[in-house]
């Protein structure tokens, strides 16, 4: 899939814009509450736990675990050439932070639930789209 990047159709809101820009410096950021320190995803206008409005993006390690995934054999959106993996990744900082993503740099049939993964970013116009690959993948 990489090298011939699919159309990402990112349409950020004012609350989520940081998420899609975060990778510009190579770091993934997730919204965190400045009062109760809980992580919040998708980001919103206030902390859903303590209702503080003191919420903002904070860097995370960018590592996590594949919670589940599907191998798409159908071109659901033109430009997404099958097969491609759509997965939910749970971040190490808080497994309730569940991120939809593509698993790349990995043979399709090697993806599995419980697999350790790390973030990387794909530039798409003004956005840096978070993708994940097997943890410890050598960068080329």
């Amino acid at each position, binding site marked *: 899939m990489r090298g011939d990047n699919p159309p*990402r*159709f990112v*349409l950020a809101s004012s609350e989520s814009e940081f998420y899609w820009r975060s990778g510009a410096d190579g770091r993934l950021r997730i919204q965190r509450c400045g009062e109760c320190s809980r992580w919040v995803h998708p980001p919103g206008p206030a902390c859903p736990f303590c209702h503080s409005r003191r919420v903002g993006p904070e860097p995370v390690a960018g590592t996590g675990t594949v919670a589940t995934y*599907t191998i798409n054999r159908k071109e659901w959106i033109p430009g997404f050439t099958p097969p491609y993996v759509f997965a939910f990744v749970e971040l190490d900082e808080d497994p309730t932070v569940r991120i*939809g993503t593509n698993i790349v740099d990995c043979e399709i049939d090697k993806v599995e639930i419980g697999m350790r993964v790390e973030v990387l970013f794909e530039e798409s116009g003004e956005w840096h789209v978070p993708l994940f690959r097997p943890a410890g993948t050598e960068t080329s």
Partner: protein
Amino acid sequence: MSERMERRAVISGAAQSEVGRRLYRTGIDLTVEAALRAVEDAGLTTADIDGVSTYPGFGGSFGGAMGAELHEALRLSLNWRSAGVETAGPLGAVHNAILGVATGLARHVLVFRTVVEGSGGPLRPGSGGGGGGGMAGSAGPFQFMIPYGAASAACWVACYARRHMHDYGTTRTQLGAIAVNGRANAVANPKAIYTDPMTIDDYLAVRMVSDPLCLYDCDVPCDGSTAVVVSHRDYAPDAPAGAVGVNAMGTAIRGRPSWDQFDDLTSMMMRHTAASMWERTELTVDDVDTAQLYDGFSWLTLAWIEAMGFCGKGESGAFVEGGVNIGPDGSVPLNTSGGQLSAGRLHGFGHLHEAVMQLRGAANIQVPGCEVVAVGAGGGPETGCLLLTKGPS
């Protein structure tokens, strides 16, 4: 138990329009056909109809027709009208009608759900997407899935199915029993889209769509309208085809209202929705004679079977395997008119219509002595259910 307001209502009429893969008829045309049949079936005239309720309340291939369109097309005079998409799934239109009747705002509410996803869907050049897709460019919660090519509910449901298989050992052969059962039952339904025989080997051989879901795990977009009349129970003795009672309705949305952020990746909102239905009745799952459970994707039916309590959590695969338990002679005859996988994606209202027919003793594959039917519709965070009885509850 305090009075259950839903028991003030009955379903006095039910009907469907022509149903087909590509009819190239307008949504309101199909809606009028179903509505007039349902009103006649209820022994009423349009002058008796004083309420309209529908889901989702907009046109297009998914929406079908607006309540106002039917209102205008039949020159109805209404005391109450309701439509919306933020309901407990598509059956929310029925829940709302029941509430309209129970509170006295209306006496006879015409409820409909129309789809033109067959001819109005992506198969027709120049039209928008149907079948749960077409949400590219959404700034809402789908903004976190669309950029990854997960544009269809198939992609999201497949993730749950995969985790269910991982955690509980559910197999594709077990999942396939839902599709095979639906096809076998669709043969007796003259309005069904697909009636060619299907074996489990056919199922296992067909192409994958979003692995582990194959083509036969996905319902078939179609054109059609279903209408029911929800009336006050006082009218039950006068309903010529027999009134169906509303024993309990399930409406709860207790977890995160999200396709991707629900806490448990092996169940969906129907877990809470069905629980809320059982909290409102003295009946139990053992009283259910047949279940009409949503099969927009086959895995959703497994989730509904577990949510309703026909088996324990994680046991639905073994429960349906081979089709014996869910067949017409099984302990819980399931989707006896073919469900959406074979009979067409009428968005839960095909299931509702079949439930009414079963309770009237008028189904094509009739469950003998049928007195209680559980109907559940929807997936993800959009789920709702009804417990219906023969005669007023």
